[in-house]
């Protein structure tokens, strides 16, 4: 069953055909049903008419027979009463009766006992057909005392002529018996005294045959009942005279049969009453399990009633045959219709199947399949055409898609490379405690996309840490390009400028001049002077950094605009003192605005909380702090997509002041002639800290170059009334010279160093001094403090390290250089 349903669902042709045939069948059924109903009613009416006619005719015929008996009987009665004295003539009359009416069964003219004195007790002139002849005898004897018979007594009792109930007439001579009914009437003498009875019988068998020969339908039959409902005529001869029409009902009542039988018999009983009351009509009822129409009518004055029983199967036999034929034709027609519909629709839909197959082929990737041309202009033709267009479009789109995908892949490859280049730009190596004893630093940048617009940078120049953090407006490739520009500009500018405000101002001008797309970058640039912990900074619209030290505080920041759109903006410089142990925590808004799945932001409060926790647990080391912060952000954000680039940088100042061992100073006028005095001072200092001759020479050159620079450039040449203070101080680690002057701001460290690889011809005169300072000392550092130029030169003592390695000044310098190169 399921398979059939599946098949129907799969086959459009079958489905459509089934629907069509289904509706056709409904229409046929309704039309034919109506037709059949009407026709059946017509047939029934016709049957009723016909049966009624036949019944009338039959009843007329039966009535006429009975009537003839009555007439003949009356005639004979008259004759007998007229000639009552002649006893033997009774035989003649009796015989004459049968001679004139050959269809009568017998006739007897019976008299009271001893009426004819000479005839004795019994006298009955009895005539009966015997074969083809007529036999007349005297019927009464001791064995047949006729005057006790029903037929003899009934007319006397009723005092009128009457028909007897059927009875068996036994004929002694021929030893035959016959079921008969008799018409009896009394004979009276002239005084009206009853003298005998004349009895004329009809054979019930004969009467039955006469009535039963009436057959409007092959299986119909007639019945006749007497006054009491006794069957006179019935196809079942066993019932005649022995049963009444009520017998069956009574029997079934006694047996207590089931309801349908009782109902049927109730109908039969009702029929019986109607017939015995001499009514006329038609009834539809069930007889012997068969629906029948029963037509009934009384037979003249006899008190009998006859009925014709017509089984409906007979009445409607022709009609049923016809309707069966029609139904068969319709059914066969519908089946044929179904078959042809399926065939036709299947044929019509064949192109669709073909298209479906082609579609599969196309779907499997073979786009150049040739589509069949069905040469049709109907819907299927249109579909085929559309399909063709679709195929062409598909081929086109797939080609485009391939190109696009290839382009995308190439862009993605480029992006990957760009990402690694961008990450490569950022400092990767952070100083460890082994590298530096004055500052610890760590930073982390996580772009939201392959490339990002956040940046951070740091490097050491002399005794200063230059650092910056920034956030370019927007994200992705444009931001990353802008970031790269910003970062390289920072590097370029900060090489020659030590003041953050100057750095940012120059960067702003440079970037704004080439910024056609109105992008901008918020930037924080700081320069931490490592010997003193003095922080100079300039904030260009960036989030204010947190200071995690004695407590949590924000570094106060001036309201400067971001870098990139107002080339003439003058950025302000700010200063702060960073104490040993304090961590400067810098970040981009990717931290405070990190969003979780509910679009809630991380917020500054959380940043402060984490920083405070770190502080209370003495974990404000840059790596630990950033680690904690990163973990907190990840926990907060959960599975949500990173919304913005996230950058954090932490700088902890850890310089411990060493005990001063020696301090000397000299104040010289700003005159180059004082150089020998200076050199003598330096020699004396070097000797006091036990530097060897070679190192002393190096220091001497460096300090001389520094002082000469001051005299030449910070002061107006030729004016010798200014002074230069040279302080020398040493702790356990190093010797420090501090050169202080009150001249105009002059930072020798920003001047480019002479290229020592050039040939003699190409070399410029100049730049050697700063080069010698840098080369001969471990560090030089410039600060402008309180209108004074402060230049510091440091030289470490050669000493034995805990690792038993000799850390020479040269080695240190190489480390420094290599850091620069990495940056």
């Amino acid at each position: 069953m399921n398979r059939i349903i599946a098949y129907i669902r799969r086959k459009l042709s079958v489905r459509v055909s089934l629907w069509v045939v289904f509706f056709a069948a409904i229409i046929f059924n309704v039309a034919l049903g109506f037709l059949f109903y009407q026709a059946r009613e017509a047939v029934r009416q016709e049957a009723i008419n016909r049966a009624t006619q036949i019944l009338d005719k039959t009843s007329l015929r039966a009535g006429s027979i009975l009537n003839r008996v009555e007439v003949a009987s009356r005639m004979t009665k008259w004759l007998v009463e007229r000639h009552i004295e002649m006893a033997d003539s009774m035989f003649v009359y009796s015989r004459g009766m049968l001679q004139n009416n050959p269809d009568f069964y017998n006739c007897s003219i019976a008299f009271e006992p001893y009426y004819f004195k000479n005839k004795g007790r019994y006298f009955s002139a009895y005539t009966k057909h015997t074969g083809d002849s007529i036999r007349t005898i005297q019927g009464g004897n001791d064995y047949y005392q006729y005057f006790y018979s029903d037929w003899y007594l009934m007319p006397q009792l009723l005092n009128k002529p009457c028909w007897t109930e059927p009875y068996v007439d036994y004929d002694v001579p021929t030893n035959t018996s016959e079921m008969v009914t008799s018409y009896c009437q009394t004979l009276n003498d002239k005084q009206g005294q009853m003298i005998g009875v004349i009895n004329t019988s009809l054979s019930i068998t004969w009467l039955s045959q006469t009535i039963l020969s009436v057959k409007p339908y092959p299986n119909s039959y007639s019945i006749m009942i007497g006054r009491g409902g006794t069957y006179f005529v019935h196809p079942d001869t066993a019932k005649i005279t022995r049963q009444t029409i009520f017998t069956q009902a009574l029997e079934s009542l006694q047996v207590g049969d089931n309801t349908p039988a009782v109902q049927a018999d109730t109908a039969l009983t009702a029929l019986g009453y109607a017939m015995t009351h001499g009514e006329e009509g038609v009834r539809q009822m069930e007889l012997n399990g068969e629906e029948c129409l029963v037509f009934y009518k009384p037979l003249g004055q006899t008190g009998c009633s006859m009925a014709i029983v017509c089984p409906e199967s007979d009445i409607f036999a022709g009609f049923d045959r016809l309707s069966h034929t029609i139904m068969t034709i319709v059914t066969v027609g519908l089946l044929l219709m179904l078959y042809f519909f399926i065939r036709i629709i299947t044929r019509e839909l064949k192109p669709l199947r073909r298209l479906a197959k082609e579609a599969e082929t196309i779907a499997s990737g073979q786009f150049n399949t040739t589509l069949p041309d069905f040469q049709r202009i109907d819907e299927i033709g249109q579909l085929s055409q559309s399909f063709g267009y679709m195929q062409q479009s598909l081929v086109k789109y797939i080609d485009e898609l391939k190109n696009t995908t290839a382009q995308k892949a190439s862009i993605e490859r480029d992006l990957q490379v760009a990402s690694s280049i961008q990450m490569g730009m950022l400092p990767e190596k952070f100083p460890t405690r082994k590298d530096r004893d004055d500052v610890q630093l760590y930073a982390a940048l996580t772009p939201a996309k392959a490339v990002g617009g956040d940046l951070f940078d740091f490097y050491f120049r002399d005794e200063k840490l230059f650092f910056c953090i920034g956030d370019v407006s927007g994200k992705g490739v444009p931001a990353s390009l802008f970031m790269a520009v910003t970062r390289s500009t920072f590097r370029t500018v900060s090489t020659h400028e030590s003041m953050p405000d100057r750095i940012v101002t120059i960067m702003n001008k440079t970037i704004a001049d080439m910024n056609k797309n109105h992008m901008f970058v918020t930037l924080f640039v700081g320069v931490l002077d490592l010997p003193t912990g003095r922080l100079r900074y300039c904030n260009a619209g960036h989030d204010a950094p947190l200071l995690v030290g004695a407590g949590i505080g924000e570094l106060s920041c001036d309201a400067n605009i971001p870098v990139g759109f107002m080339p003439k903006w003058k950025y302000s410089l700010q200063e702060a003192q960073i104490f040993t142990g304090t961590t400067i925590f810098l970040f981009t808004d990717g931290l405070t605005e990190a969003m979780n799945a509910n679009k809630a932001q991380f917020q500054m409060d959380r940043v402060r909380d984490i920083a405070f926790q770190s502080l209370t647990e003495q974990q404000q080391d840059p790596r630990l702090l950033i680690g904690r912060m990163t973990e907190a952000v990840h926990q907060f954000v959960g599975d949500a997509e990173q919304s913005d680039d996230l950058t954090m940088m932490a700088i902890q100042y850890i310089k411990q002041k060493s005990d001063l061992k020696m301090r000397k100073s000299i104040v010289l006028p700003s005159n180059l002639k004082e150089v020998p005095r200076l050199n003598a001072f330096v020699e004396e200092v070097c000797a006091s800290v036990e530097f060897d001759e070679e190192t002393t020479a190096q220091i001497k050159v460096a300090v001389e170059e520094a002082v000469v620079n001051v005299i030449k450039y910070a002061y107006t040449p030729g004016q010798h009334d200014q002074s230069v203070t040279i302080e020398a101080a040493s702790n356990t680690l190093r010797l420090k010279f501090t050169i202080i002057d009150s001249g105009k701001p002059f930072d020798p460290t920003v001047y480019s160093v002479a290229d020592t690889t050039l040939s003699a011809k190409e070399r410029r005169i100049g730049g050697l001094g700063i080069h010698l300072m840098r080369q001969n000392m471990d560090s030089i550092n410039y600060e402008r403090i309180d209108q004074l130029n402060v230049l510091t030169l440091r030289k470490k003592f050669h000493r034995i390290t805990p690792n038993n390695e000799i850390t020479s000044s040269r080695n240190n310098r190489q480390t420094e250089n290599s850091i620069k190169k990495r940056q």
Partner: protein
Amino acid sequence: MKTTIQEQDNNIVAFLEGSLDTAAAAETEKTMSPLNDVADKDIIIDCTALEYISSAGLRIFLGILQNAQEKGRHVYIRGINDKVRAIFTITGFSNIFEFM
């Protein structure tokens, strides 16, 4: 600071003695200026007695060298001590001068 210029074996030899610091540089430059006029001889700078040199002194050396090279002559440095050689090395002057 004392500077002496002599002709020796068809070369001009300049003898430097003492500390050639910034203070002494101006005078030394003046003393050595005749070297710039020499066109047909190589120059030898004798540093045996030179104890110290700063960038100002190096500039004088560079000036003499550039001048001589324009004329296709050589400048040789002789008898340089370790301390002064260290300065020459740091500044890359050791690459451009010829040492005897």
